[in-house]
């Protein structure tokens, strides 16, 4: 999460005080990313140094100081909004590594390992869903954050399901050749 760009987004609505920025940041992220005061003011100082925001006086960044976004700040914000985050290289996912490692460890059932992680992920999803459940207290930004987390966790559960099924099938019909080197070559070629 880029605190820097989130602050620029809040300032794009108009000039704001430091304290106000901190409160609005927490509100706009569904209050699930608590931010400490220091982080807000340090980031504001850097943004001002980089001339992406400006203020009326030369005082230290503090609760009562008013900030405004500058033209380069707005350009930086627009560019950030439409730049996709880097998702090209396969992440070194700890869970993927654990499942791959489980395949090599004698006496360990990879299906049991998968199930432990699946249960944990579904329990986390239950917690997020429960928070979303209460419609009387509906909060759009929170619902969006909760959805994002639910989809992220869901994609991991799906991967575990597919891995489980693939491993089960492979146990019945072992592949004729080891696909390891081929996959590696393809990943390297893509970079």
């Amino acid at each position, binding site marked *: *999460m880029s605190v820097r760009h989130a602050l620029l987004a809040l300032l794009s609505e108009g000039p704001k005080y430091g304290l106000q920025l901190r409160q609005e940041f927490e509100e706009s992220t569904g209050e699930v990313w608590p931010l400490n005061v220091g982080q807000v003011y340090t980031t504001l100082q850097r943004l001002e140094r980089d001339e992406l925001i400006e203020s009326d006086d030369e005082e230290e960044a503090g609760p009562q100081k008013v900030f405004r976004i500058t033209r380069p700040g707005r350009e930086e914000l627009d560019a950030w909004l439409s730049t996709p985050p880097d998702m090209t290289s396969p992440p070194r996912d700890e869970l993927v590594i654990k499942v791959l490692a489980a395949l090599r460890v004698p006496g360990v059932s990879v299906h049991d390992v998968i199930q432990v992680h699946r249960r944990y992920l579904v329990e986390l999803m239950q917690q997020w869903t429960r928070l979303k459940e209460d419609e009387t207290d509906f909060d759009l930004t929170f619902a969006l954050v909760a959805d994002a987390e*639910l989809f992220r966790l869901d994609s991991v559960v799906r991967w575990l*399901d597919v891995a*489980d099924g693939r491993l089960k099938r492979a146990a019945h019909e072992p592949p004729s050749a080891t696909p390891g080197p081929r996959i590696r070559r393809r990943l390297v070629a893509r970079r």
Partner: protein
Amino acid sequence: MSFLELRDVSKSYGSGATEVHAIRHVNLAVERGSLVAVMGPSGSGKSTLLTIVGSLEEPTSGEVVIDGRALSTMSRNEKARLRRRTVGYVFQDFNLLAGLTAVENVALPLELDGVPGKTAQRTAISRLEELGLADRGAHYPDELSGGERQRVAIARAVVGDRALLLADEPSGALDSINGEAVMRMILTACHRGVAAVVVTHDAQLASWADRVVFIRDGRIVDQTAPPPSAESLLQDLPEPTPRP
């Protein structure tokens, strides 16, 4: 006592070398007012489990107890009455009758059970109203959206005093928002005291349940821990991983 109990239930098809064990030694208890999701891949036995609970199929061994009565002790007529009065089903493909309006579809199980037509229709309309479908009652299934059709199917499943709701992949091909609406409706029924069992392979749907039971090769292999208290939820939530 639990409203629904499965005691060491097994179901196999065929015999000898061709015998297939669909479910094996399943124990499961569902209280009134609670929603249990059974999660597993296709072919894991979750749909068989549901048809046995709904008394559409008999187990090879073990006992299913609904509201204190063992299905094995019931006559065919008693089971038929149980299916009409106590159990509501929701299927993936809705199974609404195309020639009947939404209200008529919902009223049908009541009428089959001998409730006079007008009373059945009134009950059906009020159930549709509760589920936000007040203005769709006179529409035929093909005039409704997929989400609306599934909501009508849920209204039909919980009309009358049905106390057990069984759903097989209830959000079918619906998108996430409609799938969520379906699960909210099932939860609403649970808050009125209905016991519900939803079988699904979808973790997002399952996460609406009070308890998720995992089934694999016909066996229940695991289940989620009971939910933490509401107050501790926000504090216990892990901080999401920061993205670059």
